[in-house]
C-alpha cells in the first residue's frame, strides 16, 4: 500500500515524488540492480536476458543452416562439442527436430518477447506517459524474475535425458504428449511446458502492469489521443496478451495431465508407438491446435504491434515531420487487436476443418489485412516528401517497412484457404513468418536499441558500425527469407532434416546453399552489434539529453534518467509529433513545451 509520501494526487491522475526525495536509488547494490523495482532497470534486465537468449537462438539457427546447406558433409568438431546431437560428424535427425523446436521457441518467446515487448515496454511506457514508475513496481520485479526462471528452465532442458523438446514450437500432440514419440518428448517436453507456463504467468503480470500504467498514471494533459504510437501499441498488445495467453495455460495443464497422469484430452484412440498400442481413447489432437493458435495468432500481433509503434515514433525524428494519419493508425491498432482474436483457424486450414469454417477464417484474415495495410501505408506516407536523415535507427525502420510490406504480401496467399492448401507446411510459410514475426520485430528491436541506447546509458553507439550492422543484417535477412518463399513454391516441406532423398527437390540444393551462406553472414554480422553495444557502454561518447531532437517525454529527462524519472509530474501540452514547426529549439517542440510558446497542432 502506498504511503502519502510516495503518492500524491494531482489533477486526479498523477503519482509523483514530492520534493526532497533523492533522484538516485540509494538502496544497496542488490536492491538497485538485481531485485530492483525500478522499471528502467527491469527493462534493461529483460533486454540483456533476451539478447543472451538470442545468442543461443542464433547458434541453433546456424546448426539448422549447416545441416540444410551441407547435408552430406561431416563435422567432426561438432561431434566433439555436441556428442548427443552428432554421431560420426553427422547430425542426428531427432537432434535436428530439437534444434528447430528450441530455435523457434527461444526466438519467439525468449528473445523478441523479452527484448521488444517486456524490455522496451518496461523501459519506455512509464517514461512516455510521464510516470515515475509502473503502476505495480513489485509485480514488475516479480514478473522479470519469473521470466528469468522460465528462460533458465528452458535452457536446462537441453541437458536432461532425451534432450530438449522436439515437437516444434507449436508442440502439437501426439508428438508432444507421448514420451516414447521422439527422445525430446521425454523430460525435455515437460520442462518446455513448465517453462511456457512460467513465461505466460510472467508475461501476463507484465501486460497487466502496462495496461494499468497507461490508464492510471498518465501525466496531466496527456490524453489518450496524445499518446505516442509506441505506448498505444504496447497498450493494445498487452490487452491482447492478457486475453489470449491464458488459454495456452489451460492447454499446457491438459497436456501435462496427458503426459504424466494418464488422461486423454489430446490423445486419440488407436495410436501405436514403438509397436505398442497407446491406451488412450477419444482425445482430440486438433483441440490442442485450436487452443495453441488461439494464443499463437494474437502472439504474432503482441510482438508485431510494438515493432510498428516503435517504428512510427522513430520515423519523425529522422523525417522531421509528424507521422501520417496518427488517429487512423490508432484505430487500426485497435481493429487489429480485436480481429487478431478471431483469425486463428487460418493456421489449421489443412486440419480437415469444415469448408465453411475455412471460408470464415479466410474472410476474417482478409479483413485483418485492411487495418494492417492502412497502418503500413501510413508509415510509407510518413516518408513522403521528407528529407530522410538515414542514421542507423532510421535505416532499421526503413527495413521494418520493407519487410512488413514484402512479408505481408505472402500473408495474403497463406490467409486464403485455397492457396494455403498448397503452401501449408512448406518453406513459403517459413519465409513469410520469418519476415513478419522475425524480421519486422528484429529490425524494430535494433532500431529501438540504437535509438534509445543514449537515453538508457547516457552514451552514444558508434554510427559507422551501426550502419554496417544494418546492411549486413538486412541484406542477408531479406535474401534468406525471400528465397524461402520460392523454395516453398517448389514444394520444399518445412521441418525436414534433409532434402537429399527427393528427386523433385534436387534442384534446390544450390538455393539452400546460398540461403545457408547468407545465414552465416547474418549471424556473423551480429558480432558487429555486440561489439558496438559493449564498447559503447564503456567507451561511447557521452549523450545529450535529446540527441535525436525528438518530442516525447523521455527526451525531456537527463540521459540516463534519474531513479524516479520526473520527480514532479510533467505538464503535457501537445501530442507526440510536433515536428516541422518553428520553435526556439529548431523545428520541433517536446510535449511539455507550453501552448503559449509554440502553437499546439494536436
Amino acid at each position, binding site marked *: 500500500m502506498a504511503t502519502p509520501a510516495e503518492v500524491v494526487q494531482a489533477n486526479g491522475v498523477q503519482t509523483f515524488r514530492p520534493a526532497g526525495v533523492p533522484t538516485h536509488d540509494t538502496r544497496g547494490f542488490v536492491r538497485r540492480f538485481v531485485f530492483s523495482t525500478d522499471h528502467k532497470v527491469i527493462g534493461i534486465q529483460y533486454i540483456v536476458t533476451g539478447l543472451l537468449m538470442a545468442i543461443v537462438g542464433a547458434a541453433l539457427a546456424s546448426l539448422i543452416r549447416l545441416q540444410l546447406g551441407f547435408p552430406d558433409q561431416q563435422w567432426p568438431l561438432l561431434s566433439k562439442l555436441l556428442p548427443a546431437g552428432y554421431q560420426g560428424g553427422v547430425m542426428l535427425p531427432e537432434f535436428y527436430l530439437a534444434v528447430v523446436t528450441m530455435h523457434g521457441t527461444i526466438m519467439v518467446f525468449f528473445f523478441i518477447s523479452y527484448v521488444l515487448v517486456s524490455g522496451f515496454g518496461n523501459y519506455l511506457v512509464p517514461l512516455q506517459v510521464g510516470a515515475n514508475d509502473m*503502476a505495480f513496481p513489485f509485480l514488475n520485479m516479480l514478473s522479470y524474475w519469473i521470466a528469468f526462471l522460465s528462460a533458465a528452465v528452458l535452457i536446462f532442458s537441453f541437458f536432461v535425458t532425451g534432450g530438449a523438446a522436439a515437437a516444434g514450437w507449436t508442440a502439437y500432440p501426439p508428438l508432444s504428449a507421448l514420451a516414447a514419440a521422439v527422445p525430446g518428448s521425454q523430460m525435455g517436453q515437460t520442462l518446455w511446458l513448465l517453462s511456457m507456463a512460467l513465461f505466460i504467468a510472467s508475461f501476463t503480470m507484465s501486460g497487466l502492469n502496462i495496461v494499468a500504467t497507461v490508464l492510471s498514471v498518465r501525466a496531466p494533459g496527456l490524453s489518450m489521443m496524445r499518446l505516442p504510437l509506441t505506448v498505444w501499441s504496447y497498450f493494445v498488445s498487452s490487452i491482447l496478451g492478457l486475453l489470449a495467453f491464458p488459454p495456452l495455460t489451460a492447454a499446457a495443464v491438459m497436456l501435462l495431465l496427458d503426459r504424466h497422469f494418464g488422461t486423454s484430452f489430446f490423445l486419440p484412440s488407436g495410436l501405436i508407438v514403438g509397436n505398442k498400442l497407446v491406451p488412450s481413447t477419444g482425445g482430440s489432437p486438433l483441440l490442442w491446435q485450436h487452443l495453441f493458435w488461439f494464443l499463437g495468432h494474437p502472439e504474432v500481433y503482441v510482438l508485431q504491434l510494438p515493432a510498428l509503434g516503435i517504428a512510427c515514433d522513430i520515423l519523425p525524428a529522422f523525417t522531421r515531420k509528424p507521422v501520417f494519419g496518427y488517429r487512423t493508425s490508432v484505430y487500426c491498432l485497435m481493429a487489429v487487436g480485436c480481429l487478431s482474436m478471431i483469425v486463428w483457424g487460418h493456421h489449421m486450414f489443412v486440419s480437415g476443418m469444415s469448408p465453411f469454417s475455412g471460408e470464415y477464417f479466410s474472410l476474417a484474415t482478409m479483413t485483418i489485412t485492411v487495418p494492417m495495410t492502412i497502418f503500413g501505408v501510413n508509415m510509407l506516407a510518413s516518408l513522403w516528401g521528407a528529407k530522410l536523415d538515414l542514421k542507423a535507427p532510421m535505416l532499421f525502420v526503413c527495413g521494418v517497412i520493407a519487410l512488413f510490406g514484402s512479408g505481408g504480401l505472402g500473408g495474403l496467399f497463406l490467409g486464403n484457404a485455397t492457396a494455403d492448401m498448397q503452401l501449408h507446411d512448406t518453406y513459403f510459410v517459413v519465409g513469410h513468418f520469418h519476415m513478419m514475426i522475425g524480421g519486422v520485430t528484429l529490425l524494430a528491436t535494433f532500431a529501438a536499441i540504437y535509438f534509445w541506447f543514449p537515453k538508457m546509458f547516457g552514451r552514444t553507439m558508434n554510427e559507422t558500425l551501426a550502419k554496417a550492422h544494418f546492411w549486413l543484417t538486412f541484406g542477408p535477412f531479406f535474401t534468406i527469407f525471400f528465397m524461402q518463399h520460392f523454395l516453398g513454391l517448389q514444394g520444399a516441406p518445412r521441418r525436414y532434416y534433409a532434402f537429399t532423398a527427393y528427386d523433385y527437390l534436387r534442384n534446390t540444393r544450390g538455393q539452400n546453399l546460398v540461403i545457408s551462406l547468407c545465414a552465416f553472414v547474418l549471424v556473423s554480422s551480429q558480432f558487429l552489434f555486440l561489439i558496438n553495444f559493449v564498447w559503447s557502454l564503456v567507451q561511447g561518447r557521452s549523450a545529450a539529453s535529446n540527441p535525436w531532437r525528438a518530442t516525447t517525454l523521455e527526451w525531456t529527462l537527463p540521459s540516463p534518467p534519474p531513479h524516479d524519472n520526473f520527480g514532479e509530474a510533467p505538464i503535457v501540452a501537445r501530442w507526440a509529433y510536433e515536428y516541422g514547426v518553428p520553435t526556439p529549439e529548431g523545428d520541433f517542440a517536446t510535449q511539455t513545451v507550453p501552448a503559449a510558446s509554440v502553437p499546439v497542432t494536436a
Partner: protein
Amino acid sequence: MNTTALAMDTPTVREDQLKLGLWMFLATVTMLFAAFTSAYVVRRSGSDWRHVALPSILWINSAVLGTSSGAVEFAYARGARGRWRTSAVAMSIAFALGVVFLAGQMVAWRQMVAAGVYLPTTPHSAFFFMMTGAHAVHIVAALVVLAWGTVVTVRAAGQRRGWAARMSLCRTFWHYLGVVWVFLFALVSLY
C-alpha cells in the same frame, strides 16, 4: 447503505489502480476457464465420454460458498454503518467458510477416489478434477485477499480511510470466484 459516511472514502489513485489490476486479472482468469470450458464442449463429443456420478457434498459446498459471499456483503453493509465489530466478525466467518469450502472440495475428491473414480477414469472425471482443482487454486489466492480484508476490517475502527475501497477488492474477487464455481458446477453436472 450510508453513502454519506463513505463519501469521505473517495478512492485514491493507488486504490483505483488496484481495482483496475484486479479486473484485468479476473479477465485473464475468465479466459482460462473459458478455455477449459471450450475444451470440455469439444471433448464431450468424443465417443468415450461417460458421465461419472458427482458427490452430493458439492451441493453443501456450494451453499457454504454462497453463505460466505453473503457474509462478506453483510460485513460490508455493517462496516458502512460504522458497526466495525459486527463487520469484523462477519468477515472472519466469511473467511472461515471459505476454508470450509476448500475442505469440502477435498472431501468430494476423496469420495470420488473412494468410489474408484480417478483423474483418468473418464474424460468427464478428468475435466472435473482439473477444473475444480484450478478453481481451488484460485480460492486459495482469494482466501489470502479475504484474510487481508478481515485484518483491514478489524483495524477499521481506528483507521477507516480506504476501508471501502479495500473491501471492494475482496468483494469483487470473492463473488467472482463464487460465480465461477456456480458455472463450473452447472457445467459438469448438467452438460
